[in-house]
């Protein structure tokens, strides 16, 4: 059985719960990731914040309720609303229920979670501490190696 431990990417880049959304976006762009783990002051993992989470917060409620979304294409409401939340704390948008795995979980389990959540990355935790990541492409790559 293949274990997460053997495929883990040892990167523990994260933002803290008090980091502003502006920092989260900046980190995501420069790190070239679409999801960032969030830790507290003690370095304990709290959850993850994704591009989708930020977009979700930026899209005004009324826009979500509009059946046909495309007609607002020429208006910059989303950007305008996003600008307003740039100084909000990351914790406000953090998905604390984002799934995670441990190094001793099987790769199969990680793949199953990713399939169900439609995600492409899972944080790997060891007793509340982030020790790395496992990505979908790594799991897929197992088949061609």
């Amino acid at each position, binding site marked *: 059985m293949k274990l997460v431990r053997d495929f883990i990417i040892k990167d523990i880049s994260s933002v803290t719960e008090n980091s502003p959304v502006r920092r989260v976006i900046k980190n995501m762009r420069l790190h070239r990731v679409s999801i960032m783990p969030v830790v507290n002051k003690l370095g304990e993992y709290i959850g993850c914040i994704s591009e989708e989470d930020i977009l979700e917060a930026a899209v005004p409620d009324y826009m979500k309720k*509009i059946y*046909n979304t495309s007609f607002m294409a020429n208006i910059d409401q989303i950007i305008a609303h996003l600008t307003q939340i740039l100084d909000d704390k990351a914790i406000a948008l953090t998905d604390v229920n984002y799934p995670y795995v441990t190094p001793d979980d099987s790769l199969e389990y990680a793949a199953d979670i990713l399939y169900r959540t439609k995600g492409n990355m899972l944080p790997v935790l060891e007793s509340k501490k982030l020790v790395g990541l496992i990505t979908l492409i790594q799991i897929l790559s197992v088949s061609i190696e």
Partner: protein
Amino acid sequence: MVALASNIFTFQTYFALAIFVLAFSFIISEKLPNAVAAMMGGFLLLAFHIIDQEDAVEYIDFDTIGLLCGMMITVAVLRKSGLFEYIAIKGVKITKGNPWKILVVLSIVTGVLSAFLDNVTTVLIIVPLTFAVADTIKINPTPILFSEILFSNIGGAATLIGDPPNIMIGGATHLQFMDFIIVNGPVILIVSVVTIFILRLIYYKKLTSIQVDTARLMAFDEKRTIPDKTMFIQSMVVFTLIIVAFVTQHVHQVSLASIALGGGFLMIMVTRQHPEEILKEVEWPTLFFFAGLFVIIGGLEKTGVISMVADKMISATNNQMGLATQLVLWVSAMCTVFINSIPYTATMISVIKDIGEITTGNIDPLWWALSLGACLGGNASTIGAAANIIVAGFTQKTAWPIKFGQYFKVGFPLMLVSVIIVSVYLHLVFFFWGS
């Protein structure tokens, strides 16, 4: 028989009444979802053999439920066509960004859509658009939202399919689609004009003093709202057919439920939608709510409570239809200020039917009084009608939450004005000119 029923209160009577009161209080206090409260109440009546199975099925007015269901299917397909958004955006653009004109146009659109669609569906379409417009030109949407609430209920009263009370009355009586347009239509027009006039007194200065960025509004692109032109045309054609079928009902005598359901599925067939997807959009809880409600009220009927109320009403009005009409109108309007108009109307339909059986006079004025009273009464408060609750609820998470008192100050007086107009109208039409 009437005297008998009102004098002998058995265990069955008390039980049915208790179930009715319990279900009603759960619905009003929102302790239980409407459908659950109604279905559980209906079940208890059956479980304790207050009514038997055949009776229960008999009491459920499948014409009403079929009509509702058919319209839900039709609307689900129509929404996909993008027609409603298209109309709303076109309308908003005509105003050139003048906030007062936006209020008028969106109110008219709301009123007209409500006349042909369920009110809740209408506001679900219009309110997000209103927020989008308000956010774009940076104005407070509250006056516009108030007006939309008012017009969703006013417009809904105009046709048989516009509002749940009308659908129920249409389903339960001999009254047909055109009857509603002929009787309710003119008075609704008058009420609309008066309402707009009063809103103008309140809001015109406030709204026209705002400088707005018109160019941003013009960036809305109504052409994008229609994803598929062919489907748009197909659904328009079928919808027109459905409306024609409703209008000509007195000629072909096909039931309302059959027209709606047949039309709905024709719509699915012609536009090649997946039935699973469309049927998911049907508000099944609402349909079960109706079914449960019919059973509970059936229980009241069977145990004689309804006859007793009908009896009391007749004696209270001295058997004068003019007085009874006014009584039904005002009681309906006042009751629906705070309670859901659906269970209220369902109960009253039974009562009025009973009155019809007892008296010899024409009870049609009572139906119109019930229809207009129940539809317009809902305008008084944020909890007066399902659409109001939806709009107020939607605003709570936004920067412009609608408070109960804030709306009541505008809604209640306007409701009173509209009911006064209706009161005069009904009297003139049925008892002054009519007699």
